[in-house]
C-alpha cells in the first residue's frame, strides 16, 4: 500500500471504522513511514484539541429568561395525542371520509323516510309525516311526479340495502367520531402553532 492510498484511508483508520485487512495494512505502513505517521499524529492532535475546548459558562440571566418565557406558554400534557399528530394526515383523511359517509347516510335516511310515507303501509308519525311530504311533493312537482317516483324508488332500495349492510346507527356513530377527531386535531394543532410561533427569537 503506497502513501497516497494510506493517506486517503487515515481518517477512517483513526475512527476505527476501516475493515480489518485494510486496517492492518495501514497500521503496518504507518509504523514504517514517517510522513504518514506525522499525518496520523496531526489527526490525533486536532481531535485532542477539540476535546480540550474549555466549557463556556452561560449567565444566570439566561436560565431566568428561559423559565420566564416557558411560563408564558401552554403547559405540555401527557402524550395521549402523540399518535394523533404522528398520523395526522391519515386522521384528517379518515375523518373527512367518515364525515362524507355520514352526510350521505343522512341524505339517504331523509329520502328513505320521505319514501316510507307512500310505500310502506302502517301508522304512526313516521308514516303520517311521510304521507304529508309525499302529497306536498306530488302537488308541487307537477310533471315531475313520474321522475320523483323513480327517484324515490331508487333511494328507497338504496336505503334498504344500506340498512341491511350496516346498522344506520353505526354509520352515524362512526361519522360523528371521525368529525370529532378531525375537529379536535385541527383545534389542537392550531393551538400548538400559536404557542410555538412567538418563541422564534431569531
Amino acid at each position, binding site marked *: 500500500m503506497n502513501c497516497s492510498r494510506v493517506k486517503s484511508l487515515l*481518517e477512517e483508520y483513526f475512527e476505527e471504522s476501516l475493515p480489518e485487512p485494510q486496517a492492518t495494512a495501514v497500521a503496518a505502513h504507518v509504523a514504517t513511514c514517517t510522513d504518514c505517521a506525522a499525518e496520523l499524529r496531526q489527526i490525533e492532535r*486536532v481531535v485532542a484539541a477539540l476535546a480540550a*475546548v474549555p466549557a463556556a459558562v*452561560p449567565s444566570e440571566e439566561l436560565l431566568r429568561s428561559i*423559565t420566564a418565557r416557558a411560563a408564558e406558554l401552554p403547559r405540555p400534557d*401527557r*402524550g395521549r395525542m402523540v399518535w394523533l399528530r404522528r398520523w395526522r394526515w391519515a386522521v384528517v383523511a379518515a375523518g373527512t371520509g367518515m364525515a362524507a359517509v355520514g352526510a350521505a347516510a343522512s341524505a339517504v335516511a331523509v329520502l328513505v323516510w320521505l319514501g316510507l310515507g307512500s310505500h310502506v303501509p302502517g301508522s304512526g308519525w313516521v308514516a303520517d309525516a311521510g304521507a304529508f311530504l309525499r302529497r306536498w311533493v306530488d302537488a308541487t312537482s307537477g310533471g315531475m311526479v313520474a321522475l320523483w317516483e323513480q327517484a324515490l324508488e331508487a333511494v328507497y332500495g338504496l336505503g334498504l340495502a344500506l340498512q341491511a349492510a350496516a346498522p344506520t346507527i353505526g354509520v352515524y356513530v362512526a361519522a360523528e367520531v371521525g368529525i370529532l377527531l378531525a375537529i379536535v386535531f385541527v383545534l389542537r394543532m392550531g393551538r400548538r402553532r400559536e404557542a410555538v410561533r412567538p418563541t*422564534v427569537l*431569531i
Partner: protein
Amino acid sequence: MSDSEAGREDARLIARCLDGDRPAFDLLVSRHYRGVYNVIYRMLPSSDDAADVTQEAFLRAYTRLDTFNLGRSFPAWLRAIASNLCIDHLRRRRSQTVSLDQRLESGLEPADESPDASPENQLTVAEDSRRVLAAVHQLPEKQKAVLVLRHIEGMKLNEIAEALRMPVGTVKTMLFRGRAAVREMVGEL
C-alpha cells in the same frame, strides 16, 4: 450522580411536568442549560446568538415534551434540537455572519475567552483548541455540527446520525472531510 441516576431524575421531572407541574421544567432547564448552551456556543461564535438559540431550544423542547420518548436520553434529545436549530440559524445568517477571522482582525474577542488563550501560552493545548475551534467555525454548517457533536460532545456516529437526521455514512463523510479541512486550515499543531 451517575448517568443512569441522572436519566431517572430527568424522567421523573418530565413526568411531573407532563402532569402539570410547571416548576419541574425549571429544574430540567437548570440541570441542562449549561450543556445545551455549550453545544450551541461551539457552533455559533457569538455568545448573544448562543443565548438566543439556547432559549429557543428549551422552549421548543417544552412545547414538544409530550413527544419525548422516556426510554431515550433527555440530554441527547436536547442536543439534537440544539444542533438542528444551530444549523438553521447558520443558514439564515450565512450572508450576515462575521467570521472569526474578521472578528480577530477587527479586534473583537475570539470565541474562547479562557485565560489559557493568552499570547504567553500560545503553545499550550488551550491555544491549539482555540485555533482548531476557529477553523471549525469556518466549516459548512452540517460539517461543523458533526465535528462538535463527535469530538467536543463525544457523541457516537449513530447518535449524530439520529440527531441530524442523516445516514451514518453521510455523517462519516462529513466528519472526515471536516477534519481534513481543519487540518488544512490550522497547519502544524
